[in-house]
């Protein structure tokens, strides 16, 4: 009986990351724009990078692509740009996973910083030069810094949820 329950929990846990991603893109609360002047972070980036790195089942590229489309619709950016960014993030995480023999949190963290710097610059260039959007560079820097800092906190939170709440190893 307990085995069945544990199995159910694991199946349920499998869909938590993708559900969280869809809720975060569809919900009106946007951590990218909390209305606080010097504080914003990108929750989706942390979520995608972490779970791609962990090679989580059900966190499929197709669904991430759809989540990106949804994010573009809700946020109002040209459709396809968030998908592209999310997929690049997945690619970076997959690359890190392939080259890593012994996972190290600090290395992951620094790699995450480099990745978000590159993809944010990429999205800034596309939005500014191709789609004529006026993007405030300072806000983007704040966003990158806090996304980078909060990555560690969220990693501990995700691990805590995984082990303590769901009992998954």
């Amino acid at each position, binding site marked *: 009986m307990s085995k069945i329950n544990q199995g159910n929990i694991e199946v349920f846990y499998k869909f938590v990351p993708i559900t969280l991603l869809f809720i975060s893109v*569809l919900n*009106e609360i*946007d951590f990218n724009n909390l209305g606080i002047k010097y504080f914003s972070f990108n929750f989706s980036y942390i979520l995608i990078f972490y779970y791609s790195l962990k090679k989580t089942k059900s966190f499929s590229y197709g669904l991430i692509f759809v989540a990106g*489309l949804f994010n573009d619709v809700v946020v109002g950016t040209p459709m396809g740009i968030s998908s592209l960014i999310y997929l690049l993030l997945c690619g970076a995480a997959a690359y890190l996973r392939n080259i890593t023999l012994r996972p190290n949190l600090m290395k992951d963290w620094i790699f995450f910083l480099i990745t978000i710097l590159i993809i944010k610059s990429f999205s800034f260039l596309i939005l500014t030069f191709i789609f004529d959007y006026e993007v405030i560079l300072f806000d983007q820097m704040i966003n990158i810094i806090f996304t980078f800092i909060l990555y560690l906190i969220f990693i501990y939170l995700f691990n805590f949820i995984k082990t303590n709440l769901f009992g998954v190893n």
Partner: protein
Amino acid sequence: MESSRDDIVIAIRSAFLKKETQQRFSLLGLIFFSIIFLVLGSLDFKPVNYIKTIVKEIVYRSSYIISGPENFVKKNYVTINNHFKLYEENKINIIKLESFKKKDLSNKIITLENIKYKKLIDDYFIKDNETFAKVLIDKQSPFLRSIIINKGSKNNIKLGMIILDEGYLIGKIVEVNYLTSRVLLISDINSKIPVSLQPGDTQAIMSGKNRRSGVLQYIKDKDLKNNNEELVVITSGAGGLFISGIPIGTIKNKKDDLKTNNEIVHFYRNFSQLKYVKVVSYSREKGSLDTSSKNDSAKQAGKVQEANQMEETLKILLEQKKIAEEIRIKIEEENTIFKRKIIDQQNEILIIKDDIKKNIIQKEEIKFLKLNLIYGHKCKKSVFNNLYKVTSKKYRDCVFRKGLKKN
């Protein structure tokens, strides 16, 4: 060296090209698909546009449902907050109401005059479509400050229509779907609105800054750095984007915005609290200088004159009322004085009456004493007669009769 380069290439190839277990699509394929989607979407490729519209309709509705619990909490928080502020707000509103009542008639006259002059210069617009819409999504994005409303092309919503919240400008329609539309808020950095600053009629372009304020760019003909008075920001109507005269916000005096170089426009409305909005479009009223419009103009002039006369009459009546009030107060004061005087006089009369009574009694007494001296012996009882006792009334009557007997 060579082998490490090979390792990187292998790792990249593995990450982007290899279709991993439980992945239906390869990463590179999806990245290419995203780029194609992005490019074709920007080129207005029809099938992509159809897909976009379908996705938008689904996402807007889903987002509305998913944001339900959060909106419920937000709504209740606002309700509770408003409840606590109710008493103070009521007090302020009463004061405001009084002041607005006073200004109402003057405003009516100014409005009518304004309409008259606008018609004369062929710049009078009338509402030709007005729809109320519910805000479905109010997600604040760092790239685009916009809201989604539940009215689309099905409800005759068109691009460029103006969005008002209780008469204040909040944005315009930038995207129309079948059942929904996107509104670009004036707080967005990309929204450029031709505005006019009153008093002074200074022309400028306003851009969004944050949720509650915007900044003025390209201010024409005026240095506002030493501005000490509060300026009202309204749409100027330049460029034909918006009609003129829609209120947007205020520019407070410089003390408030000392730290910034730009002129800060404080919006009248709080864009994070939008629930229902009004979508309107305006059209120019036909015929301005033809016969009918002249007649209209004459009618308007008549109305203005009538209103002016009413105001004059009202002023006179108010003056008369004031004078009558003063007279009434004066009369009341005099009346009070007279009443006091009457009471005093009545008291005096009573005193005098008492004196008179006493005098009469004294006179009678004196007369009695005089007659008593002369005729007392004729009435006085003694051993030899059977007359009256000295203290009795009969003795007194006898003295007054001068000792004569009764008939």
